[in-house]
């Protein structure tokens, strides 16, 4: 089907997230206003005003009642999804890069960038059921990895935290003690900054995308490397179909290195790969800049991509897509 072009952001997109029911799509961009859209027709439903910097990331609770956003204004905010009101603001001394609710939505993991003399850190916060009882303090703070931590997510049963970032190493931490449990192998692991990381619907495996022009599939529990998908472009965003054995890689030439001659030159395509055979299936073109964010609808029947060009493109799959054989 013709993609739906969602124009609402004024700056490059940074992150996309569907709620569990798949009827809402939350988008973050370098403008300061996260936006919520109807995931079906791309109509804009509302915005969340209050941040004072680029918004890097967001997550939505399982019941779609609460939104958490992390921003370069050094805050992480909790919002009422329906009313668009701020419930709480966590303050940090440096920009927040990634946030994720734990299973049960009672905890959240937040990563902050290295800034001034602060090193990067992973924070675990308790999220109160009633936001009036919300407190600032962290349950756990993990420091150690060099450079920015681009993504941190919860492992199975909230027992571990998986982090990845500029040092190209994927680490698994104990979420109780903050102890480092596992580290990805230098040989088989990524060679450059890991830009994105997304978990499978059941959390059993996850996919990481890197500027080394590859994406890798790992087992969440053992950190075993299962698959590698090679592409021709630095990977900025990855997504996995919850329905079929497909993975999608998005990226493109660095915005500063893009030529002006031909938009094909940048390869701003979302590339589909067979998850098992690691072979390329096809590509979805359209963006006029690198793809920064990708997300699959939980029903697997549509996906959306957000680009450096400031647009969100919502794609509903044609019936042919479900019969692709390679």
């Amino acid at each position, binding site marked *: 089907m013709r993609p739906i072009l969602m124009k609402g952001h004024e700056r490059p997109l940074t992150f996309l997230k569907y709620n569990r029911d798949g009827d809402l799509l939350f988008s973050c961009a370098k403008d300061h206003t996260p936006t919520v859209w109807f995931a079906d027709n791309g109509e804009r439903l509302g915005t969340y005003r209050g941040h004072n910097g680029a918004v890097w990331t967001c997550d939505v609770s399982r019941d779609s009642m609460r939104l958490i956003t992390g921003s370069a204004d050094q805050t992480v905010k909790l919002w009422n999804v329906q009313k668009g009101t701020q419930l709480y603001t966590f303050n940090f001394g440096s920009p927040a890069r990634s946030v994720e609710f734990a*299973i*049960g939505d009672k905890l959240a993991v937040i990563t902050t960038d290295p800034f001034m003399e602060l090193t990067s850190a992973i924070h675990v916060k308790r999220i109160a059921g009633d936001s009036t009882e919300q407190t600032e303090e962290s349950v756990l703070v993990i420091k150690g990895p060099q450079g920015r931590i681009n993504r941190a997510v919860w492992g*199975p*049963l909230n027992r571990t935290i998986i982090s990845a970032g500029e040092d190209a190493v994927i680490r698994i931490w104990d979420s109780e003690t903050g102890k480092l449990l596992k580290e990805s192998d230098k040989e088989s692991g990524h060679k450059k900054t890991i830009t994105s990381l997304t978990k499978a619907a059941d959390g*059993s*495996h996850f996919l990481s995308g890197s500027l080394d022009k590859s994406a890798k599939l790992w087992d969440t529990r053992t950190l075993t490397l299962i698959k590698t998908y090679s592409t*021709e472009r630095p990977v900025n965003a990855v997504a996995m179909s919850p329905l079929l054995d497909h993975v999608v890689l998005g990226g493109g030439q660095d915005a500063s290195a893009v030529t002006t001659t031909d938009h094909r*030159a940048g390869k701003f395509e979302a590339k589909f790969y067979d998850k098992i055979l690691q072979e390329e299936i096809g590509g979805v073109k359209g963006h006029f800049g690198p793809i920064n964010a990708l997300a699959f609808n939980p029903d697997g029947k549509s996906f959306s991509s957000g680009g450096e060009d400031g647009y969100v493109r919502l794609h509903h799959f044609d019936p042919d897509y479900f019969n692709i054989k390679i």
Partner: protein
Amino acid sequence: MAAEVMLMNEIEAKAASMGIDLNIDFNSIQLPRGEDCGIVSDDEDVYHDDHLEFDSGFGNVIVVDNLPVVPREKFEKLEGVIRKIYSQIGVIKEDGLWMPVDPETKKTLGYCFIEYNTPQEAELAKEKTNGYKLDRAHIFAVNMFDDFDKYMRVPDEWAPPEIKPYTPGENLQKWLTDEKARDQFVIRAGTDTEVLWNDARQSKTELVYKRTYWTESFVQWSPLGTYLATVHRQGAAVWGGANTFNRLMRYAHPQVKLIDFSPGEKFLVTYSSHEPSNPRDANRVVINIFDVRTGKVMRDFKGSADEFTIGGAGGVAGVSWPVFRWGGGKEDKYFAKLGKNMVSVYETETFSLIDKKSLKVENVVDFSWSPTDLILALFVPELGGGNQPARVSLVQIPSKVELRQKNLFSVSDCKMYWQSNGEYLAVKADRYTKTKKSTYTGFELFRIKERDIPIEVLELDNKNDKIIAFAWEPKGHRFAVIHGDNPRPDISFYSMKSSHNLGRVSKLTTLKGKQANALFWSPGGRFIVLAGLKGFNGQLEFFNVDELETMATAEHFMATDIEWDPTGRYVATAVTSVHEMENGFNIWSFHGKLLYRILKDHFFQFLWRPRPPPFLSAEKEEEILKYLKKYSKKYDAEDQDVSMLLSEQDREKRRMLKEEWEKWISEWRRASEEEKLERQKLRNGEASDEEEEYEAKEVEVEEILDFSEEVLFEE
């Protein structure tokens, strides 16, 4: 080499076991001056010359002998004279002129030392003033200071040279006997240089030899494919061997920039250009001609860059390379250089000018050899505002007899294209229109092999079309021309034969509006790739000229280079690092089917290994052609086997992958099942797994719809 490789492996293993990161930036390491830490360089003897200069620090000192012996009164006068002579050549260092005096007689000793700023100046001074006549009695003898050491060390007694036992060399052409008749190519990407087999049947490459930092600037095959030349700061080297690549010979030439083989690969020409100490001077150019096998310098040419830049468009550093063009086919008998108002033709027996004289041609600006015969084609442009017409003449070497001459009127520029067998010469002439406001292009076609060399004039249907590209069919009688104005020019094919008259050129066809700007004929003729490089983003059209039909159109996005393999079976298209993106190469079949694609960052070079001409006689070749069906049967069968095997392997691989994946899935299911209860607890008891969402729950609902009382029994 094998030993070194082993060593490196051991080091890596050791480092790994000790947990040391071996990824070191080698450029950041500098050994202390004059200290090699006992590491013996691979290129030790090439380095040697340099070391002498730096270690002793006297590389820029010359010794001038045979000076007049003068008393004290005349000392300053003599010093003044010497300073005057030698400061013309370069900058003499402060206190750099020292003329020793005999302490007893207070007279000079008849020699002096001069220290220049650079060794280059010193060398130049030695060359220029050795033998300089100050007066009849005093002829300078100039030597490099460092050379004294060398001369002192010459033993007084003659020792017979050691005769080394004969060891048979390796078969340097073994790659030609490959069972699968594959071809090799070399690629350079990043710091790695690799020689690979093109295994087109299996759609992949097979590594022959790989080496990191093999060359410091580029690599080049010799014209017959025997050697691979690498270029380093200290000189060039050639590599070859039966199964691997060993260094066969080195050619010392500091700061060598360009190299060129003679067509029969007997000689190697190396070129370097050096900054002058005086910025007003032109660069100094050094050209050496080496014998490839012995490594001996057969002749060297030194001079200012101006002497080597006459005519030609000017390639690297202002010199149109190759400076020396080789003639006479594979015999390597003659080579020639363009000079001012002359062409200097040298012969390789003595490495001197033929008849000790250059060929005088007033105002000659370009020349080219016939690829097969000893014929030079010379071009002299129009002079005197059109009073003296431009001229193309064919001159036989070594007799210097003019075979044919053609005057061309109102010509602004001219280019010469030889057909590969030397049968035809096409001269593309750009002419002014009568008003001189614009130019149009025509061709003069010479039939070299026919009596009296007839010339025919060819003009395009539309005379005003610009010529974008021209190419002869190798070994054939046809040529292709891209003409017209961008963005969609036309392509025309012509034949030197026409159906009823053998002696006339005829047009075969014109293809209209093609996205092409370059022509690549198959080395076997018949097929051609019409390519749109650069602005056309890598459009490719594979065209069959026999049938005049397009076999395939394709695109290799952003392609910068195209090269046919020497047999004309495959085409390689490459994107080299002129762009940052898409770097790598594609291999296509001759009819335009993409066989495989390999991506490499920082991709610099792709070169097919050339093949020597076939060793078979013409009759034998004809016989093979005649019974081609019989021969090809065997290969067809092999092809089939390979493709069966491949699809079998592919199926097997897929099955394995699927199986492996299933294992993971079941593992994950099990784990998920185990954790199910705990997960529910985390979610306040809410069932989390998707299947439970849709689980049918039986709910009994009772609702009272109506209430009535009836009396059933009446008593």
